[in-house]
């Protein structure tokens, strides 16, 4: 896996954009002309120093107000890896952007201001990362230059977040004292913090090992599109196109076709590079089978053992993203899950969750913008799914407003073990 997807989150003014600017600048992902125009703008704002944050704020209003509004995607690479970085704003009201950025990330980068210690938002970022199933967290304790590079500002933050991340079952976590503004421990190791013995941020991200998801996870292939050329040359051709959501599959393997549960054998796997004997998670392939079955978009191929659930009622954790409406029991919505769209309604709004402590706030009658709750959903047709904690690709869904077509909610099927119990 040489492509690493990172989500960065931070609070207002903790230097997140500066850190990203520094990563882009020091890895030479910024071209000179972009740098020049940014410098000119920085001078117009009469900054004393070159404002690296301006490199990442894309919209006019963001540059004017010095804030980040929307998720922005950044790209840089080193000889070891290509990085895709989702830069998400840290304002309290923008939880939905954080959830968005975290949904595709392998690693969460949390930034904490060394002067302020762990604030409510740092905890919230860790919690959202955990809810979204991120396995690796890197905490950058920033602005060390403003606390004279002293270890006593670093340790309490590390201890505090170490306990939280352990409770959240995030086993891979790492703490790095940095100064994004001056470049300490970002790309090069700083000699101003001899008490910190590990390496700087970028080499850590380059060497971070991601687990091979294809070994112990079940095979899941949501059928996306049925290819039928209807030409003389390919008269009887029928291929099932899609992206493998989890696991591995090979030619000759017996599979189950859900929801019917009929079994068949794989006769061919066509990849973008041509025919192959096997394929794994993340590959976009076309699968051909030995039997002529009634299969359309929304069906799912799986192994014959360890099949996905097929239900029209299930528990899920939902993050609400609409300013205009709230989530209430009985309201009709559209749900998009894998390659399947159906209608859904909440049959039980079990509880609202305090995102900072993960404690159960008890019964509520609605979820508002940026609130997270535990619900039971009923759908107009059965969905074929796994728990989000087991398979991201078959356990996630979005909720769509039937009248405005806006995406108004994001959901993860199941119930995290730590949710509701509250954190220490």
């Amino acid at each position: 896996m040489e492509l690493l997807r990172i989500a960065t989150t931070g609070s207002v003014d903790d230097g997140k954009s500066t850190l990203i600017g520094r990563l882009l600048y020091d890895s030479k992902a910024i071209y000179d002309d972009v740098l020049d125009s940014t410098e000119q703008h920085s001078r117009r704002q009469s900054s004393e120093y070159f404002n690296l944050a301006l490199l990442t704020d894309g919209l006019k209003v963001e540059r004017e107000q010095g804030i980040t509004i929307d998720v922005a995607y950044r790209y840089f690479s080193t000889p070891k890896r290509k990085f895709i970085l989702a830069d998400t704003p840290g304002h309290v009201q923008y939880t939905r952007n954080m959830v968005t950025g975290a949904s595709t990330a392998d690693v969460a980068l949390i930034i904490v201001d060394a002067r302020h210690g762990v604030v409510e938002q740092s905890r919230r970022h860790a919690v959202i990362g955990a809810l979204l199933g991120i396995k690796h967290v890197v905490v950058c304790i920033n602005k060390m230059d403003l606390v004279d590079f002293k270890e006593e500002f670093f340790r309490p933050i590390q201890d505090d977040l170490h306990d939280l991340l352990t409770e959240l079952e995030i086993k891979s976590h790492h703490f790095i004292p940095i100064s994004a503004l001056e470049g300490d421990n970002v790309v090069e190791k700083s000699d101003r913090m001899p008490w910190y013995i590990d390496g700087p941020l970028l080499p850590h991200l380059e060497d971070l090992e991601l687990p091979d998801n294809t070994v112990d996870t079940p095979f899941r292939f949501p059928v996306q599109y049925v290819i039928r050329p209807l030409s003389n040359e390919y008269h009887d051709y029928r291929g099932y196109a899609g992206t493998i959501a989890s696991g591995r599959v090979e030619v000759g393997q017996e599979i189950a076709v859900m929801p019917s549960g009929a079994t068949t054998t794989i006769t061919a796997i066509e990849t973008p590079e041509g025919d192959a004997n096997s394929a794994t998670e993340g590959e976009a392939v076309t699968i051909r089978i030995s039997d002529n079955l009634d299969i359309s978009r929304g069906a799912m191929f799986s192994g014959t053992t360890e099949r996905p659930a097929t239900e029209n009622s299930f528990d899920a954790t939902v993050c609400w993203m609409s300013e205009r409406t709230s989530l209430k029991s009985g309201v009709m919505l559209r749900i998009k899950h894998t390659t399947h769209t159906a209608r859904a309604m909440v049959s039980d709004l079990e509880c609202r969750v305090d995102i900072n402590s993960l404690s159960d706030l008890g019964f509520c009658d609605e979820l508002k913008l940026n609130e997270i709750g535990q619900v039971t959903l009923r759908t107009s047709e059965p969905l074929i799914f796994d728990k989000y904690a087991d398979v991201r690709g078959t356990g996630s869904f979005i909720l769509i407003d039937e009248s405005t077509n806006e995406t108004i909610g994001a959901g993860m099927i199941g119930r995290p073990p730590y949710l509701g119990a509250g954190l220490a």
Partner: protein
Amino acid sequence: MNSLEKSNSELLTSSQLRALEAESIHIIREVVAEFERPGLLFSGGKDSIVMLHLAVKALRPAKLPFPIIHIDTGHNFPETIEYRDITAANLEIDLVIGSVPDALTSGRVQASTLPGASRNRLQTPVLLDTIRDGKFDAVFGGARRDEERARSKERVYSFRDEFGQWDPKNQRPELWNLYNGFTNPGQHIRVFPLSNWTELDIWQYILAEGIELPSIYFAHEREVFERDGMLMAYSEFLKPEHGEKVFTERVRFRTVGDMTITAGQKSDAETLEQVITEIAVARVSERGASRADDRTAEAAMEDRKREGYF
């Protein structure tokens, strides 16, 4: 670089490219499965060529079930037009042309008489008319998020209202690989399958796949003149003004747009490998190096995008 290092870095590149390729194919298939009338914007530039290549891969062995759309300013490089026509004929797909010259003749748009004016901005109304007349509900575009900072905020599925407008502050959240393509009649979605590709990824993929490009991407001799520090191609559409001298230079083009706004750069790169070597060490962005249209204002792209531009 010793041979072991070299083969490692080639492997690395290929696994990156395959991951990007899979993501793009997933997006293209999603659109074909969910929309009634998609179309693919094709300029004859390298990004739209790669996008078309991916679409063919995503749906093979079936023929592409949608047309390609070209917004023709009438000021294109002849090499690009030739490439476009041959490509459409080879793939046996329909070509829909939105013509700026026709729109000028009919009075739908007015040419600016200001010095330095191009037909760039005139493309927007013609593009929106073409989308409306063709009843397209999804339009693939080859834009990449690394191109320009307003683009870095763009979704893969970018919603456009009845006026074709992009509202950057009010975009649909986009999670996992679950794209929301619901629209009402008159609205459409711009789909950007290459969102996560960088310029270098595009070139390396062209090399890995052996994709043919229009000849202007490679070094050739051309009559040019210098304007604002950029080498503009001398043509019937763009002529030198006071004091600008025409001379012959060996150039290639890093992006391909209108002849009036696309600048060339001095180069001896005749092969893909040579072009990639030059780009890998380039210190100027592709839009900065070759697009006069982005130099007009700091937020030029954002402003044009809000109006419905590509």
